[in-house]
């Protein structure tokens, strides 16, 4: 008697759990929470009609449906998105240091004000050369020194070209930071409220960060999986940053979609510090035929402007 009652209770509980969780996983697909494995033993015989990718209506047993998981565990994040090679093209002619890329990236990755995965540099090759604004994310190199030097495999290169950090593996030795010639990596020096975010950690979101580990720009694979652009790309009001797939040969800045190879060859795209041989996945278009004078980039807080005080151009400007 007792047994059968328990069984019924269990069944009821199971049913409730499954139905609750199925509902949740539908939500999870939107908000990025955990995936729910469906109990394969339970069969209700209920069928659901679905549209397959090749345009056919198919009937599937409800229990067999595997809801696409949004949450990518650290282990799963080591596999790249199949048949993709992500690239970024940054058009220096359009950048005016509006800093929207920086701000949105910081917001999305819960970074404190001074920690920036995307940095905007005021570059000037020589004193005579024209200064220009250069947004710099992680270059996701094809020959990443940071990955070679990591003693525990906490940072890795994926098949889709993205270099990620698993901050549950990182021991915080900072060797990768000295290895990266582009200063792309940052250390979480102290615990802060920014590191306390109520969401499961995934290297694809880099959220929440962890004290004593290294973090950097991740090319937002969570957004890509959702069919969206990385935060910096969608935030830029000038359409400076193009993002796309080198295998498909297509990049977009959200306004226009162009062939990657054509853009690079027609606009003389280059990679920063090419001679180091790290083979970055980020390309730059030289700052010619500019849309803004470089001084427009100083329409910022004094604190931001202070950063560039050592650039010869700024020094000269202050003198006059």
């Amino acid at each position, binding site marked *: 008697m007792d047994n059968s009652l328990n069984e019924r209770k269990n069944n009821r509980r199971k049913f409730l759990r499954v139905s609750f969780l199925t509902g949740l996983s539908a939500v999870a697909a939107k908000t990025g929470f955990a995936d729910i494995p469906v109990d394969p033993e339970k069969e209700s015989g209920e069928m659901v009609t679905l549209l397959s990718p090749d345009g056919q209506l198919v009937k599937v047993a409800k229990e067999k449906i595997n809801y696409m998981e949004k949450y990518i565990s650290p282990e799963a994040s080591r596999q790249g998105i199949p048949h993709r090679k992500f690239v970024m093209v940054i058009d220096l002619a359009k950048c005016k240091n509006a800093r929207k890329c920086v701000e949105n990236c910081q917001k999305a990755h819960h970074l404190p004000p*001074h920690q920036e995965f995307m*940095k905007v*540099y*005021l*570059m000037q090759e020589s004193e005579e050369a024209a200064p220009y604004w250069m947004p*710099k994310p992680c270059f996701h190199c094809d020959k990443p*020194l940071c990955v*070679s*030097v*990591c*003693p*525990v*495999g*906490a940072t890795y290169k994926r098949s889709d070209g993205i270099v990620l950090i698993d901050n549950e*593996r*990182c*021991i*915080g*030795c*900072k*060797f990768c*930071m*000295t*290895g990266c*010639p*582009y*200063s792309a*990596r*940052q*250390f*979480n*020096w*102290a*615990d802060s409220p920014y590191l306390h975010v109520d969401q499961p950690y995934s290297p694809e979101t880099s959220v929440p960060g*962890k*004290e*004593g*580990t*290294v973090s950097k720009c991740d090319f937002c694979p969570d957004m890509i999986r959702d069919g969206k652009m990385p935060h910096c790309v969608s935030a830029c009001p000038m359409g400076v940053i193009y993002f796309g797939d080198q295998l498909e040969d297509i990049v977009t800045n959200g306004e226009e979609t162009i062939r990657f190879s054509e853009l690079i060859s027609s606009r003389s795209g280059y990679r920063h*510090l090419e001679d*180091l041989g790290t083979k970055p996945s980020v390309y730059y278009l030289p700052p010619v035929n500019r849309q803004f004078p470089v001084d427009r980039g100083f329409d910022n807080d004094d*604190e*931001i402007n*202070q*950063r*560039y005080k*050592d*650039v010869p151009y700024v020094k000269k400007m202050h003198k006059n």
Partner: protein
Amino acid sequence: MESNKRKQELLKEFLPQLEKTSILWYAWVAFLFGAIFLGIYCLVLQILKGHIITGMRDNVVWGVYIVNFIFFMGISYAGALVSGSMHLFKTSWRGPILRIAELTTIIALFIGPLYILLCIGRLDRLPFLFMYPRIQSPITWDVIAITTDLFGCLIYLYLSFIRDFALLRDSGDTKLPKWRINLYTWLALGYHDTPSQRKRIKNVTNIMSAMIIAIAIIVYSVLAWIFSVTLQPGWHSTIFGPYFVIAAVFSGAGVIIILMRVFRSIYHLEKYITKQHFVGVGMILMILSMFFAYFTFSEYLTKWYGSKKLDDNLIQILFTQYFWQFVFSNYVGTLLPIIIMGIPRFRTINTITFAAIVAVFALWMNRYLIVVPTLETPYMPIQDTRPEWILYKATWIEWCLTFGGIGTFCLLFTLAAKFVPIIPVSEVADAELEMSAELAKGQNNYEATITTPIKKQIVLKKEANEL
């Protein structure tokens, strides 16, 4: 047996050092414990509050800790190289200073790796180094190399101790507590100085001393490669391996001289550690400082002569912001030992010690100048508003932990000198016997009975003059 008698006689002379402890000794140990506890306190603070309380930031990610790491590892390898090669090449005067060199090796080798741990953000994940090792990382090479070195040095040190442990066991009427005699008995592994045991220990020590030289060179090169495999302009250099090895022996020779001076006065070893030893190790110091100066010169000359922007940035910062440190570490530190050792008139025990102290500080500073300014001149210009994120300045936490490490070094040395005679008794006695046996064969029969070290010196000098 004559040798045994002489050994016990010698041991009697050193026993008071092991038996008696003065109030001053306790005060010194208490002081060292104070320094160590201060270090531990800082370590706890650093673990609790994070690395934010150090001066390290995103540009200069390694600071004084890694400098101390290279420095202590260097001292350790130097001890190994000096004692190993003195043993291997049967340097006649090695006896009295051999143990100081060996102890330096092993004690510094315990402390060095502690400093790299201080650079690590998540100490709780240290097992990952063994759970998920990646052989392509130079840090993994270093883990393998340092563990090999640690075992090699421990074996070598132990081998050199066994005979003295046996002596201490057999010493009879000592005031040493029972547990210590038991410990010596256990550690002596039943060594009774039989001819076969004697031969075996000699062979094994010879093999180990050769191995330890090779291991030391490899290990310190691996450490240098941690820096030179990166693309950083100040580090990416092919000569870093040999440069580091030379620098290591240079600083180690300095530390050995300082320790010789210290033990000479506090234990009144004037009879054993003589000027000859100071001049001997001082010569090593001089030769190495020449090599070191040569490597330093060629390293910076090539950077300065060329026109590469990044090299230029580095040279700029070295000759402006770090000018005095640069002059001290690379000019004073190398020239002073050469001048003091090169001109015989200047060679006294105190001047040699002074040169050694300067050399050791200069080398520490040289390591600092290799690590910090390089990280302050990266490929991407540093554009930041926070001054402390641009230039590195060590905080009191880092200094306290540095002193804690030095305190640990001194403490372990103090305790070791309380546990075994700081002069390897068997080694010295054997050397004396060998000497007299050799002399007996020769024409200098009148000196054949010589046993005391002072007379030995006279003989040695005579030999030197004949050469």
